[in-house]
């Protein structure tokens, strides 16, 4: 399985009158991420399944990825907190329920949890999840990391890291 970790696009700052969960994408964030999606489209990327956090900025980011989604989507609070066995179980259940099994799954979420998830799946290394550890990998907004392998801690490898800017450039050429 390939697991595509997508960090939400640029969102508005927290302000009086809204909660963190209600922060929407900015106009610029939407515009840039649309180009990023076109870039992924140009690379031939198609998602069989997309899971996303319930926070508004992640829902909107996921929604803009609709053109490259070929299967179902699902929201889960497990993507709005540190990665857990429950999240892996959720993704495995989605794959088991699919015929054929899911090959390319996207998760749209937040930092630092996406990096934590990558570290856990690649190294089975949870001690790196400490806030005092130096960042092993930090996804920028609209950035994408691709892991491949069995969806088990320590059994995936990092195969690609797409910077948001690179994806936008790809998307702009159309």
């Amino acid at each position, binding site marked *: 399985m390939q697991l595509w970790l997508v960090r939400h696009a640029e969102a508005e700052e927290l302000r009086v009158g809204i909660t963190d*969960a*209600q922060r*929407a994408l900015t106009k610029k964030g939407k515009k840039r991420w649309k180009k990023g999606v076109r870039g992924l489209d140009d690379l031939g990327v198609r998602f069989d399944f997309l899971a*996303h*956090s*319930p*926070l*508004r900025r992640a*829902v909107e980011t*996921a*929604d803009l990825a*609709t053109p490259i*989604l070929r299967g*179902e*989507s*699902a*929201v*889960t*609070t*497990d*993507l*709005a907190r540190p990665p857990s066995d*429950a999240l892996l179980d*959720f993704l495995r259940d989605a794959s088991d329920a699919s015929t054929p099994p899911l090959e390319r799954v996207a998760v749209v979420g937040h930092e630092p949890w996406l990096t934590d998830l990558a570290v856990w799946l690649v190294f089975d290394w949870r001690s790196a999840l400490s806030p005092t550890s130096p960042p092993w990998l930090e996804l920028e907004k609209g950035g994408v990391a691709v892991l491949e392998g069995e969806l088990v801690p320590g059994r995936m490898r990092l195969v690609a890291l797409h910077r948001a800017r690179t994806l936008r450039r790809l998307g702009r050429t159309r």
Partner: protein
Amino acid sequence: MQPASSVIARLREGVARLRDEGSSAAHDPELVHRVRVSSARLRTRVELVGARMLRDDLRWLRKSAAALRDLDVLVERAHPEPWARWLEHRRAEERSAFLATLASARAKGLLTAIEDASSADGDEDGARERIERLRERALRSARHLEDPKAADSAFHDLRRRLRRLRYALEWIDADAKPLEDVQAELGALNDHTTALRELERSPLAASLAAKRAALERDLAPRRARALKAWKAAKAWIEER
């Protein structure tokens, strides 16, 4: 477009009571019905405003509520033993599955995200275009309905599409009354096919052959009534 707040409040209140009171609240068929209807209405609204996310989640929640609701309706009728006992057993299974659905991270995420996703007004023209597509899909799905060999699933498909069309019309405050009769007939047909399906999957199927024969005999007149109601609704839909 009608605001979504009251439907969201109904869904949230229903889910909260079911979660807090657990199995005892799940014995209240009206509460289960409320979750089913409000999730279906919200799914249509999300579609009308042109969003893609949460549609699958709302369908998933509606489906889980509908599986229990179908059995609630079936159990409410008088049935001979041991068929009645089997249906109660099946209802308890679906109730547990429904409560597990409500307790999941997916359901919690859905209730967190639904307000923002369905509060967007969307553009009126876009909503009308989408309603036009729903109208066309409903007509297309019923093309072969008059064929006596049409599968039960064709009636079920039409029921699903008419439900979406009706909710969509209600969201924009348009008249949807002429769809009520056909929906009622298709609903009655669905209750009937649910009974047959449950009978077939039950270990008692062999000993309830007479019951099954009676249900099968009654299927054709029910399909005929649904078809008659559809013809009246079809004329109205085509004129729109």
